[in-house]
Structures are given as C-alpha cells and as structure tokens.
C-alpha cells in the first residue's frame, strides 16, 4: 500500500489511465482545430469532438445536440443561471435555490441579486434534503428558474431530482441542476427526471480538469442569453476553440462511467460501509452528517465530537481528507453546508469528509479506520471538552467567551 492515501474524491479524482491513453494523441499528432472545416486536421478533430458529445449525451439520456462544452461545472452553472435569468427577465425575475448549494451557484445568484433579481435561498432539512412542500410554496408567478444540486459535495446527499423536475414542469419553471458530484456516479436521465439544464464536471468522474459540459434541453427548447462572446461556438452559448484532447477525455470518462457505474458503486458502497461501521464500532460520540440512505456511495461525513478537525487531519497526515473546520479555510467560518443542516458550530469544527472512489482499496480503508480511531482517542485525551463531558458537564450550558 502506498502512502499517502487519497480519500478526497469529492474534491477531485485522478484521470483514469484508460482515459489518458485515449487523450494523448490529440495533444500532438492530432492537434487540429475542430472548427477548421477546410482540411483533414480539422475534420478528424471534429469527428472526435462529435464522438465525445455523443458519449456525454448517452450518459445522461440526452441528445448530442443538447450538450454544450464548457471549462467545468462552475462555468456551466454560470451560463445556466445567468443565461436563463437574463433571457427570461421580462417573464419573471425570481430564482429559487438551496442554502447548501455549491458556491458556484450561490455566488452567481448573489451577483444576480445585485442586478435586481430576486433569489430565494431555501433551507434544507436536517438530513440535507429539500422539503418539497417548502419548495412548492416558494414558487411565485415571477419564478423562472429553480436550481437545485443533484448531490452535495460535502455531505453527498442526493436530492429528489425527478420530483423537483415534475414540479417545475407542472409550474412551467426551468429546472437546472448542478450535477458535478452526481454525473457518472448516479443513473441520470434528463427526460425521465424532467431536467432542463444540467452542469457536468470532467474531473469529478476520472476525466481531466478544465473541462465540463452543460446540458441544455431542446424539446421544449430552453433559450439562454450567452455570457461570453466570440466565434459563436457551441450554438453561440459558449464561444471559444474547443479543447479536443480534454473533450476526448471527457467523452471517454463518460463512456467508462456508464459502463462501470453499477460495479463501481457496489464496490465503493461496500468500502464506505466498511469504513463507517469500522469507525462507529470503535468510537463513541460521533455524528453522521447528511442522510445515510439518499447519499453518494463514496461519501462519508462524520463529526468527531470534542476533536477539532484540522488537528485531526494533522494527526492522520498519511490520509488525504477534508474538514468542515474553519481552520482549514481562509474565512475562519465553519462549513456553511453543515450549518445549513442545523449542525452547531462546535460540531461543524469537528467534521471530516472521507471521499472514496474508483481506486480506493479495502487495505486503504482498514488503514484509515485504524489511523483515525487512534488519532481521535489521542486527541480526546488532550481535549478539555472531552474531559468535561466525561465529568458529566454539559458544555452547551457554559457561557464561553467568544473571541
């Protein structure tokens, strides 16, 4: 087993070596611009891009013509949300999203608010899921767009896409989903789920970084205002020369994900449960953050009471994970996603996200269990809060001096 162990697959995934092999020739000997329609360099690149478009479309049950290539999910989210809001502002200026969305959605919405759009940031339930009744109640006659993520990046919870899609269709509202964490991991069918726009990120499912896609429905047609201008590539929605090697990689990763989704999920889920149960058996005072059932197979997010997240990550330095602790961010605020579940600040500081993936092994999981149990026990011995808890003192009742 090689150290350090990578357990942060919601942050990014490695490019699958099979994907890289397919990409490599497109950097060097097959370097043509797919827009060069006057010679064979362009033609072969164009053919490759067409294939990639089809591969991505197949993974989500879409038509190849509905795929717009972008630089990643952040750009896709921007195009979708700004594009819909600006095109349809005569009809309405209201957008609904969730407080637990990725910053690429939240910040885009904030920006639109500064331009006069109205945004409702719906709270989520304590398991991280949207309350469908609340969502329905939040709709007004000005609502043009509902943007709700497919799976959460921190806690892995999966929102009820088909239910949201049905509600949106019934109320004639566009439905956008940031599916960066879900594509390639969950079966997605844009027609069955009535999704109008869907953001995809290549590097979350073993494709390259710097490439992604936006699905834009054609029937009934979804119209957007572009936010970037140029040569009119991608039906004018996203100008800019298409990066053939990255797109070939994205397509290959999509095809592999489609083929291996079931077997990957089975294996990753078994590893995740081995880890969850292994840790829970040996330690007390743990909280699982986010719903256990409606959850990505590879995600585990646990608060280890009385142990601060950053110090825990230092103690398990051979294991790459991430924490909701404030100390890991520049803002000094603990995770807003955990706070949105009603997790108190103290517990948010003690959270660790484990992200298992296609290349995780049982040996690695067993090493992580052993390492984390030892570290938590050591740090609790050093924790004044643990000591107080053992003495039966309720630390919530103490008046702490904030600093």
């Amino acid at each position: 087993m090689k150290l350090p162990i990578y357990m942060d697959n919601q942050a990014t995934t490695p490019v699958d070596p099979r994907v890289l092999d397919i990409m490599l020739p497109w950097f060097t000997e097959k370097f043509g611009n797919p827009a060069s329609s006057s010679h064979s360099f362009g033609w072969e690149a164009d053919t490759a891009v067409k294939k990639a478009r089809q591969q991505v479309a197949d993974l989500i049950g879409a038509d190849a013509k509905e795929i717009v290539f972008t630089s990643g999910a952040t750009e896709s989210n921007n195009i979708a949300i700004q594009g819909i809001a600006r095109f349809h502002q005569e009809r309405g200026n209201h957008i609904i999203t969730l407080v637990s969305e990725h910053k690429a959605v939240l910040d885009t919405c904030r920006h639109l608010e500064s331009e006069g759009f109205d945004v409702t940031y719906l709270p989520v339930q304590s398991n991280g899921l949207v309350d469908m009744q609340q969502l329905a109640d939040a709709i007004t006659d000005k609502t043009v767009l509902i943007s709700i993520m497919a799976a959460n990046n921190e806690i892995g919870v999966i929102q009820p896409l088909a239910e949201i899609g049905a509600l949106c269709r019934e109320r004639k509202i566009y439905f956008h989903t940031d599916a960066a964490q879900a594509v390639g991991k969950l079966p997605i069918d844009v027609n069955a789920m009535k999704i109008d726009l869907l953001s995809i990120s290549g590097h979350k499912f073993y494709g390259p970084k710097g490439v992604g896609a936006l699905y834009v429905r054609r029937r009934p047609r979804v119209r957007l205002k572009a936010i970037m201008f140029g040569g009119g590539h991608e039906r004018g929605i996203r100008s800019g020369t298409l990066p053939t090697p990255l797109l070939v990689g994205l397509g290959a990763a999509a095809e592999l994900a489609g083929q291996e989704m079931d077997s990957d999920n089975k294996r990753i889920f078994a590893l995740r449960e081995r880890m969850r149960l292994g840790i829970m058996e040996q330690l007390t005072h743990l909280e699982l953050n986010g719903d256990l059932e409606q959850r990505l197979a590879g995600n585990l997010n646990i608060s280890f009471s009385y142990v601060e997240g950053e110090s825990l990550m230092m103690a398990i330095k051979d294991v790459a994970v991430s924490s909701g602790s404030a100390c890991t961010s520049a803002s000094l605020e603990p995770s807003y996603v955990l706070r949105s579940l009603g997790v108190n600040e103290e517990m948010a500081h003690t959270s660790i996200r484990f992200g298992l993936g296609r290349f995780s092994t049982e040996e690695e999981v067993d090493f992580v269990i052993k390492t984390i149990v030892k570290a938590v026990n050591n740090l609790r011995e050093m924790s004044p809060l643990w000591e107080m808890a053992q003495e039966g003192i309720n630390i919530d009742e103490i008046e702490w001096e904030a600093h």
Partner: protein
Amino acid sequence: MAYNDKVLDHYENPRNVGSFDKGDSNVGTGMVGAPACGDVMKLQIKVGDDGVINDAKFKTFGCGSAIASSSLVTEWIKGKSLDEALEIKNSEIAEELALPPVKIHCSVLAEDAIKQAISDYKKKQ
C-alpha cells in the same frame, strides 16, 4: 497549509498534557476560547510556597497551532514566578512557533490562558 517544524514537534510530542485537581489551593486554572470558535485551552499551574510555578499542565481542543501554543507555554512558565509568567506576550509565542497571521489568535489564547490561570490562583490565596 504546511506547518512549521516547531509546531509539528509540539503537536506530535505535546509537553505536559494532563490535569491537576482544580480544587487544590495551590493550583490555578485558566480556560479560554469557545467550542463554537474551534478552540478551547485549559491551562493549569501548580505554585510552590516560594511563589514559583513548579508545574504546569494543559488540555486543548483546537488546531495544531493552538495545541502547539499551549504546549509551548507550559514549558515556558515552569520555574517562573507569577510576575515573570505574566510578562509572556503572545507575540513571543507567535514568533517562536512562526505562526502565520490566521493563527495569531492561537498565541493570544495561550497568553490569556496564563493570565486567567494566575488570576484564578491568586483568588484562592
């Protein structure tokens, strides 16, 4: 974030972890910080009849820099009189551990913990 060697050393081999009986008349206890802010330090001193701190213990909930800051000050205050211990400044702690700006508050907490422990001890006399 990469850590300074001294922080790592104190984090990996913390000095003087533990607790004294806080009811003891020659023990002073300082508890500073807040769980919601992600750091709580408990610092205890044991003072001899000669007014010299002859032992110190800590327990800390917090990041590596918070643990290192408290571990470091337990070493520094041992053998010091109360007045000498009160002179320890957070800037000296931050400098010794080469704390980056976002971690300066850890050294402030450690200084506050010393002051609170001494004040608790004095109240008992």
